[in-house]
């Protein structure tokens, strides 16, 4: 009974949340922009054709940067809009646990991002037509990209719970996600090793999404990388619940 009602609550909230994406034109605009950016970076900046290799590394390499702007744009409204319009009061006085609502909203937005990612399938088809790529590697890349977007999204949910202002939520999450990139971004780590202890740099880099996304791009699904992304998601969602509880405590 208990578990059943949790599942039912999560399903009801997630369904509402996901369908609210598609009732506004913003969702379609987002999908188009995502696909255009992915295409642009892959074919133009990433010189997909000139590389002469049958792989999607030119495609996946840009994902941490594309998501940096687009995931906060998708997630910024998740909680701040509820706070601004007062529906949070309605939602949290229903017989649902706060964690159910938090998880449901996260899953719905993540599903939306998954749809966006899935729509890039023509690129995977293209490499298969043009050459003979390692499809396992491509699948691993997709898994990694999906997890990466989940990590950014969870962080955005957290910043979104902090404020009723979507713009502030957006900026905060971009800054946090940027930090997660830069901690392991080669130009930055190279610069840091010049004046910091390399061991320290390595520890910092261990917190970077780049470090952990790398493996997936190479076709390796390492449990440590999986664990990293899942714990970022878990931690950020837990922080969201603390923020929501404290907000109500006044």
């Amino acid at each position: 009974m208990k578990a059943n009602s949790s599942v039912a609550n999560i399903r009801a909230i997630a369904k509402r949340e996901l369908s609210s994406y598609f009732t506004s034109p913003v969702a379609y605009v987002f999908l188009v922009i995502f696909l255009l950016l992915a295409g642009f970076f892959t074919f133009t900046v990433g010189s997909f054709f000139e590389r002469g290799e049958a792989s999607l590394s030119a495609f996946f390499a840009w994902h941490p940067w594309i998501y940096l702007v687009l995931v906060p744009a998708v997630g910024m409204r998740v909680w701040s809009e509820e706070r601004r319009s007062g529906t949070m009061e309605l939602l949290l006085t229903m017989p649902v646990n706060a964690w159910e609502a938090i998880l449901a909203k996260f899953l719905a937005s993540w599903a939306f991002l998954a749809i966006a990612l899935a729509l890039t399938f023509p690129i995977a088809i293209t490499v298969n037509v043009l050459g003979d790529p390692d499809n396992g590697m491509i699948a691993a890349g997709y898994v990694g990209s999906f997890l990466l977007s989940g990590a950014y999204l969870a962080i955005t949910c957290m910043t979104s719970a902090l404020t009723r202002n979507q713009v502030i939520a957006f900026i905060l999450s971009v800054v946090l996600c940027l930090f997660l990139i830069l901690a392991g971004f080669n130009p930055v780590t190279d610069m840091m090793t010049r004046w910091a202890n390399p061991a320290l740099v390595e520890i910092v880099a261990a917190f970077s999404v780049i470090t952990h996304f790398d493996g997936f791009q190479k076709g390796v699904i390492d449990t440590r990388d999986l664990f990293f992304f899942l714990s970022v998601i878990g931690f950020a969602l837990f922080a969201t619940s603390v923020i929501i509880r404290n907000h109500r405590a006044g």
Partner: protein
Amino acid sequence: MIRIENLTKSFGLKKAVDDLSFSVERGEVLGFLGPNGAGKSTTMRMITGFLPPTAGRISVGGHDVVEDALAAKRLMGYLPENAASYPDMSVEGFLGFAAELRGLNGDAKKKAVHRVVDLCFLGSVLHQQIDTLSKGYRHRTCLAQSLIHDPEVLIMDEPTDGLDPNQKHEVRNLIREMGKTKAVIFSTHILEEVGAACTRAIIIDRGRMVANGTPEELRNMSELAGAVTIAAQNADAAKLSALPEALRVEAIDGALRVYPKDKSASVALARSVMDLAGREGWRVDALRTEEGQLDEVFRRITLPDTVKK
């Protein structure tokens, strides 16, 4: 059904609700009155489990709202102050969503949505998107949401806010009707609603309870209650104030108002005034016993001391 003990809520240093205790049983409709910022909404947010209390206990249907939140929430329907709803949903979709969160699915859900749509007169806007509704319809949509599971306890924060006079009337009737079988708390700034819908009313001011009683009892707290007003030619104020039941006499545009010493003996006062008029041969145009007025009571007990004269 609802039991509140020593409820306190502080925001920083400020106490929004201060040591409030009361209870509401099934079959009661409690009117919750108080000036702006008195702490009505804050109290309701604590009862419905949205805000945790700083101190004190709340139980609904025997379930502690903090410890056993879900069980308590299941019993309650809540209409929040701003009557918020999801603007991108249709009325039907929104009510369906509320029904699902209340554990209603399939046929039960359809039936529940139909029932509240009829109850709140939403039939004509069923498929309209909520952000295109007028304010009153938006309010009614949120009201419908609070009734969807036919709750045993209803908490409504200004349920008639923004409704037209006909709808106000309907909603009051609805509240009274539901009060027969449920425990209802509603807040309002419209004092007529207290007489029209409540079995009991509480007035709070700056977080503290300052009055608690039936509408009748509250009205009797008014100075005016039981006073006899007489409009008569050549009436004599001195003779009226000499009556044993009279406390004092006041002239008000062309008439004289006699205040009783004892409010419960207003009938005796009215008789004496009539007898006196007969003996003196005054030509009486009008004579009436005044009812107490809630707004006067309200003003007197909730005005800050500095404003009181």
